[in-house]
């Protein structure tokens, strides 16, 4: 096996699972996700000379994946959303203006991290792509704002604002679910 192939496999293949899961959430179709991941690795291998050793290989691979996705998939596969962004933002606004209402109490609950939630997956898939992708890159895959900006080809500030709106929209979609799950109240000011 050549040095290039060995170096590529060592650097890139460990991220196949992360790429596949993100591709699934972008394309919403397992067959499309598999095609997208295969094309990502192929293109990355052919241009491995452009990758700077020591830099973040995961962010580089996501840059390629997202570029292929935007060029080949999302125009053809875009689907209607269940609820408009404006309606969701209004719902979040109402929540934020009634913080003392017990129905609006929300909290972080230790021990919920391992719970599998089809509701969250469903809500995420309904988010407009502009907001969904920063959430996937930063909150799910752990990329920094700067790395996500490089993947998306936009300014760091744009990542921050889309992330903020995306988090609020997702909360508005999941508010009923959160309350049904019996969350208590905890408003610790620590980040």
């Amino acid at each position: 096996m050549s040095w290039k192939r060995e170096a590529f496999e060592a650097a890139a293949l460990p991220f196949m699972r992360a790429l596949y899961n993100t591709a699934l959430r972008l394309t919403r179709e397992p067959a499309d996700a598999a095609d997208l991941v295969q094309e990502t690795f192929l293109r990355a291998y052919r241009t491995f000379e452009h990758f700077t050793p020591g830099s973040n290989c995961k962010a580089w691979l996501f840059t390629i994946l997202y570029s292929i996705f935007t060029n080949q998939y999302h125009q053809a596969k875009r689907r209607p959303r269940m609820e408009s962004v404006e309606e969701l933002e209004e719902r979040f606004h109402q929540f934020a203006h009634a913080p003392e209402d017990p129905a609006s109490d929300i909290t972080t609950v230790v021990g919920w991290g391992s719970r599998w939630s089809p509701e969250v997956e469903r809500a995420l898939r309904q988010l407009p792509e502009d907001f969904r992708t920063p959430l996937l890159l930063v909150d799910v895959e752990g990329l920094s704002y700067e790395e996500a900006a490089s993947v998306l080809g936009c300014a760091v500030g744009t990542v921050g604002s889309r992330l903020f709106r995306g988090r609020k929209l997702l909360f508005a979609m999941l508010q009923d679910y959160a309350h049904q799950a019996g969350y208590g109240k905890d408003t610790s000011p620590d980040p």
Partner: protein
Amino acid sequence: MTDNASHLGATLQDFLDGRLDAARQAEVRAHLEGCAQCRGELEAVRWVRDVALKQLPTQDVPPALAARVAAALNAAHEQTERAGGRTVGRRWGRWAGAGALLAAAAVAFLLVVKPGEGGATLPEAAARDFTAYRDGTLPLALHTSDGAAVEALFVSAGLPFTTRVFDLGMMHYQLQGGLVHRLRGRPSALYVYRGPEGSEVVCQMFPGRLAELPRTADVREHDGIAFHVYRVEGVTLVFWQEGGVVCVLASDAESEAVIRLAYAKAVRV
């Protein structure tokens, strides 16, 4: 502290994600103590980040996909090997039929061409850079629409020539950002615009002379400046000289539109 004007808005997220300095963090904490609305918003976005999105199921990679990726990499590797073998064969064939002078020139050529560039001409290399950017394999180092910020990037990198990031706003092209790059082994200031209907233009400035370019039948003159035009695999490239620097625009947009952009922005030095 409950009126709209005093609420924290997006600063809450900067606080949550640790993007504030210590003094600003302290201010936010003090505000949160007295503002139930901001506490509620903070907890909502925190819940999404730390609880909801941690509940997402993770799918295993299907074994068939791993096998497909391995097969695709094998095929790409073999294709590269075959292409490399053919190139070497052609070179040896030429050397066998030429004199010692030609052989020496060929060795010198192979020594100066950077591995991986495959002996590409400047138009081929610039076209390859355009394709790499468009396909996402050549990411920018700085994303901004501020031309001065991109020029500052080039200055801070110590590029040995003065750069000029054009303003193409009048032509409806917006600057996307820049990258300190290398074009056939020489330092290059690379910056990108996105135009109407998403068309992209990759610009590079590098030290050199137009005489280094291969011959082209398409040489134009506009306002006393010579423009050398090439077309490489669907990419139009327009080169011109500004002092000791060569400028090139590369794009897969309509050829004459790319040439008009070059006319609009070239400066006689």
